[in-house]
C-alpha cells in the first residue's frame, strides 16, 4: 500500500456523467458518506433533454407518447433491460427527486408527466423526450400548436441554421420566419459557451433584445439556439421574454453545448454543499479489495495521488466514450475492475453494416449484467462482489441511444443502485 493521503468513505462513486452525479446526489440525500471521482466525462455532451423512454420497440422505430405505459410494455418484452429491475413507482420517484433538485438549484425542468414532449433538434427533426430545461419549455408548445415563430441564429455560429430548421419543419409548421444577426460583441467564429456566458450580463442581453426587436412583427414566439446563460438561466430568460414581449425558447445545439455545461456547473456547485467529496478530473488508477471486504482505490489526476478506502463502490463509468468499457480487436473489457462484460460472440457481430439499421447495433447492448440489487454478475448470474454496484449506460441489455432513454436510465438505475447500496451498508453495520 503506497504511503499516501488516505480518504475514508462509505461509498465511492466512479464516473461524473449523469449516472454518477445522480448516484452521488441520491447517496448524499440518504446520508451516505460519499466520494465522487471521475473525468469530466460525457456530461459535457449532454443535450439537456431528459429522456425516459422515447422509442419502443426500437426495430419498429415507434415513437412513444406515454412513456409510463411504454415502460410497462418494455418490461414485458425486454425483461433483461435495466428498467426491468425497477417499478414505475420507483422510476417516478427518482425522476421527481431529480427534477426537484434541479428546480431548487435554480434550473427547473418542465414536463407533461403523462406524455412525452416533441423537441425540435438542430437538424429540424423532432425528438421525443420526457422533460426539458425551462429555457426550452415553449419549444414543444409552439411546435404542437403551430404558433408563428421567429427562429434566430447568429453569424459565425457553425452547425446551427435557423433556415435549416425552418425548412425541415415547413411541411408541418408553416408559420416560421428566420433571422440571422450578429451576436453582440461577437466577431468571427462563435462558441455557444462564450455566448451563454456573455448573456449572463445585462448589457449584452439588452443589445441582443435591441437587435431582435425590430424583426418581431406578428410572431408570437421566439426561438434561439441554446445560449441563454449558464448559471442564471431563469434571469436571462425572464429578461429576454420581457424585453421582446414574447415567450422565448431555446433549441438544442450540436454537442458539446451549454446544456451539458450547465449541469456540470450545477452539480459541481451543489454536491459539495450536500457533503459529497468531489475528486473531479481524477481517475482511478488501481483497486484492491482488502481482506475485510472494503475497497482501496488509487486515485489522482496524472498518477495515483491518494488512496480512497471505501465500504462500497458504485460504477457509473459509462461506455466506450466515457472509458468505462474498452475494446480491442478481440473483445470488450470493463476498464477498472475487469468484471465480466456481456457481449456478442465476436467482432463481426458488434455493428451492422448500415449505420441506421433499425434494430440498432448489438454492441450497444453489451455491458455489465447485474442482479436485482444492481451488482455486476458473472458466471451463472453469480454476484462478483457484494459491495460493487453499477448504474447508468454501462449496464447491459439496453440501447439508450436508440431507445432515447439515457437520462432516465442514468437517474433511475442510480437511484435504485444507491438504495441497494444503502441496504448493504446497513446490513454490514448491523452485523458488527
Amino acid at each position, binding site marked *: 500500500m503506497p504511503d499516501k493521503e488516505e480518504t475514508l468513505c462509505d461509498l465511492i462513486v466512479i464516473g461524473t456523467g449523469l449516472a454518477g452525479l445522480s448516484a452521488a446526489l441520491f447517496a448524499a440525500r440518504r446520508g451516505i458518506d460519499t466520494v465522487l471521482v471521475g473525468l469530466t466525462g460525457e456530461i459535457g455532451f449532454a443535450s439537456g433533454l431528459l429522456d425516459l423512454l422515447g422509442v419502443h420497440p426500437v426495430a419498429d422505430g415507434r415513437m412513444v407518447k406515454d412513456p409510463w405505459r411504454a415502460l410497462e410494455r418494455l418490461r414485458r418484452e425486454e425483461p433483461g433491460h435495466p428498467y426491468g429491475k425497477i417499478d414505475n413507482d420507483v422510476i417516478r420517484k427518482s425522476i421527481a427527486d431529480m427534477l426537484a433538485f434541479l428546480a431548487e438549484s435554480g434550473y427547473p425542468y418542465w414536463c407533461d408527466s403523462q406524455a412525452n414532449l416533441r423537441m425540435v433538434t438542430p*437538424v429540424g427533426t423532432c425528438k421525443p423526450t420526457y422533460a426539458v430545461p425551462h429555457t426550452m419549455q415553449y419549444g414543444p408548445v409552439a411546435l404542437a400548436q403551430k404558433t408563428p415563430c421567429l427562429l434566430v441564429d447568429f453569424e459565425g455560429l457553425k452547425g446551427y441554421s435557423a433556415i*435549416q430548421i425552418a425548412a425541415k419543419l415547413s411541411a408541418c409548421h408553416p408559420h416560421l420566419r428566420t433571422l440571422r444577426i450578429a451576436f453582440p460583441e461577437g466577431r*468571427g467564429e462563435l462558441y455557444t459557451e462564450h455566448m451563454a456566458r456573455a448573456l449572463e450580463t445585462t448589457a449584452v442581453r439588452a443589445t441582443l433584445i435591441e437587435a431582435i426587436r425590430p424583426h418581431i412583427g406578428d410572431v408570437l414566439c421566439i426561438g434561439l439556439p441554446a445560449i441563454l446563460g449558464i448559471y442564471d438561466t431563469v434571469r436571462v430568460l425572464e429578461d429576454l421574454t420581457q424585453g421582446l414581449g414574447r415567450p422565448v425558447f431555446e433549441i438544442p445545439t450540436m454537442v458539446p453545448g451549454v446544456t451539458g455545461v450547465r449541469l456540470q456547473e450545477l452539480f459541481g456547485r451543489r454536491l459539495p454543499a450536500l457533503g459529497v467529496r468531489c475528486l473531479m478530473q481524477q481517475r482511478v488508477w488501481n483497486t484492491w479489495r482488502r481482506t475485510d471486504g472494503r475497497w482501496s482505490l488509487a486515485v489522482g489526476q496524472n498518477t495515483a495521488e491518494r488512496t480512497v478506502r471505501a465500504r462500497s463502490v458504485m460504477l457509473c463509468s459509462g461506455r466506450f466514450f466515457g472509458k468505462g468499457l474498452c475494446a480491442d480487436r478481440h473483445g470488450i473489457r470493463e476498464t477498472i475492475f475487469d468484471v465480466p462484460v456481456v457481449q456478442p460472440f465476436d467482432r463481426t457481430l458488434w455493428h451492422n*453494416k448500415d449505420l441506421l439499421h433499425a434494430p440498432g447495433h448489438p454492441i450497444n447492448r453489451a455491458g455489465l449484467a447485474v442482479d436485482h440489487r444492481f451488482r455486476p454478475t458473472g458466471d451463472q448470474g453469480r454476484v462478483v462482489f457484494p459491495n460493487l454496484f453499477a448504474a447508468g449506460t454501462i449496464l447491459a441489455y439496453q440501447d439508450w*441511444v436508440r431507445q432515447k432513454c439515457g437520462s432516465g436510465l442514468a437517474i433511475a438505475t442510480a437511484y435504485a443502485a444507491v438504495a441497494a447500496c444503502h441496504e448493504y451498508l446497513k446490513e454490514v453495520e448491523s452485523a458488527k
Partner: protein
Amino acid sequence: MQTQVLIIGAGITGAGVARDLALRGVHCIIVEKQDVNAGASGGNHGLLHSGARYIASDPASAVECQRENHLLKHLAAHCIEATGGLFVAVAGDDENYIADFPSTSRRCGITAHEIDLKEVHELEPALSNRLIAAYAVNDATIDPFKLSLDTIADAQLHGSRLLRYSRVVGFEIVHGRIRATRVKDELTGRVLSIAADIVVNAAGAWAGVVAAQAGAPIRMRYSKGTLLVTQNRIAYRVINRLRKATDGDILVPGGTVSILGTTSERVASPDVIYPEIHEVDAIIDEGAVMLPQLAETRFIRAYCGVRPLLEEAGKRGTDDPDDRAVSRGFALIDHLAGPEKLANFVTITGGKLTTYRLMAERTADWVCRRLGIQQPCRTHRVPLPNTVDARWTEPGLAPNTWLRSHAPNDALLCECEMVPRSVVEQIVTTIRKQDGRPSLKAISLRSRIGKGPCQGTFCSQRLAAYLYDRNYLAGSQGIVELRAFLRERWRGQQPLLWDTPLAQAELLEAMHCGLFCLELAAEGGVIEGLDHA
C-alpha cells in the same frame, strides 16, 4: 442530345478516353451513374506501379506499368509523389522468388537495386528487423481523385461534357448500330436519349452490365480488394512485400496517411461491397510482419473497390481461388466482332490505374479509326493541367491556404482537416460547372471533409447548415443528405471499430441518432408524429 462519342463511366478510364479524344478535337459526353471515381478508380491504393509487382504473374502488364510510370511522372507530376518504393522480404519468405527478383525485373525493363539491410532501416525505420532482403524500385504514389478531376476538367475545357448521376438504362439498336442511348437522371428520374456516332463502354466493373444491355455478353470476374487508412504516415516510401502477390503486402503513403492493403476476394456483383472484418484482420496481421507498428496503429477508414477482371476462355483454372493469376492487363473489345455485331460499340475494361492513359490512347485510336479521323494521340506529350477543380483533395492544402489567408469570417466547417467555407464555395462552383447539385457526398468527394478522425460526426451537420444558409439545400433535403453521407462514411468505419474509433463512433451515433433521430427519419426525411405505444 447529340455527340460524336458517348463515354459510359467517369472513372479514370472514361475520363482518360474523353481527354484523349477531346485533345484530338472529338466531341464527347461522359455519363456516370454516380459520381467521378465511384468504382475502382476511387477504391484503390493510389499506387503508381513500377511494374515489379507483376513481373512473375503478368510480365506484359509489368512492362506497360514501367513505361507509363515513367511517362506520367513527367505529364501529371502534380498528381504524383515520387516516393520510390521498396520490396522487402522477411525471414520465412520464399527464397527462390527473392533470388530471381532482380533478373526477372530486368527482363521487364525494371531496375531493382539491392539495398543493404542496415541502410534500409535508416531509410524506413518502421520496417521490421526480421528483414532478409530489400530492393529499391521506382514506385510512386498518385492521387486518383485529383487525376480524374483534372483529366475531366481538361476534357471539358476542350468541349466535352460530364453528366453525373446519369445511368444508362437502354440502347436503341437499329441495323447493327446503337442509334441512341437512353440515360436516366438518378436525381430527377427523367430519361434522356443521347445519339452518338460511337459508344465507349468504360464502366469498369460494370462494363459487363452495360454491355449486356446492348446484347453483348462479356464474361467478367469481380475481385474485391480492401484497403485500410492509417491515422499517420507510417513510411516515406511505398513498401511491398517481396513475394508472390497476396493479402496485406503493400503499404502506400498518401499525403499525411498511409494506405495498407489489399485483399482479393471474388464477389458476385460489384454493386454492394463492404470491407469485411476478416479482411481487415488479415491485412493488419500480414502488414505487421513487414511493419510491426501496424499491429498497434490507429486506422481511420477502410474502403474497397472491385477490380474488373476479364475472364479468358480456357484460362479458368480452379487453382486460383483469389483471382490473382488472372491478367491485370486491359482489353479493348470491338463488339462488331462478337455475336452482337454492333458496329459503333466498344468496351474498354480491365487494366490498372497506372496504365489508364495507355488504355485511353488505344481506345481513342480505335474510335478515330472508326470515325475516319486522322488526328494522332497527344496525351503522351501534352502535360495534364493542374486545375482548381481538383485541388482540395490534397491532404494539407486546405489548412495551409486557410492559415495563410487569415480571414476571420472564413469559418472552418471541417475542423479535423481544416476545410473552410471559402473552399466549400469553390467546390460548389465546380460541381455546378459539372451540371450537378452540391450534395454533402459530392462536396466530400472533392475535399478532405469527413476524412479526419471525427469521420463526419461534426462537419456533416456544419456543412448541411451552411448549405441551407446558402440556399443550396431546401425542405427535407438536409436529412436525406445527412443520412446518405453518414451511411457512406460508416461503410469505411464499421470494420475498424475498436479502441478510440469505437468511442468516436459511439459519439457519432449519440448525436446523429440519439439527438437528431436520423435513424427514425423516413427515406423522404419525414418524421411522423408520436405514436401510442
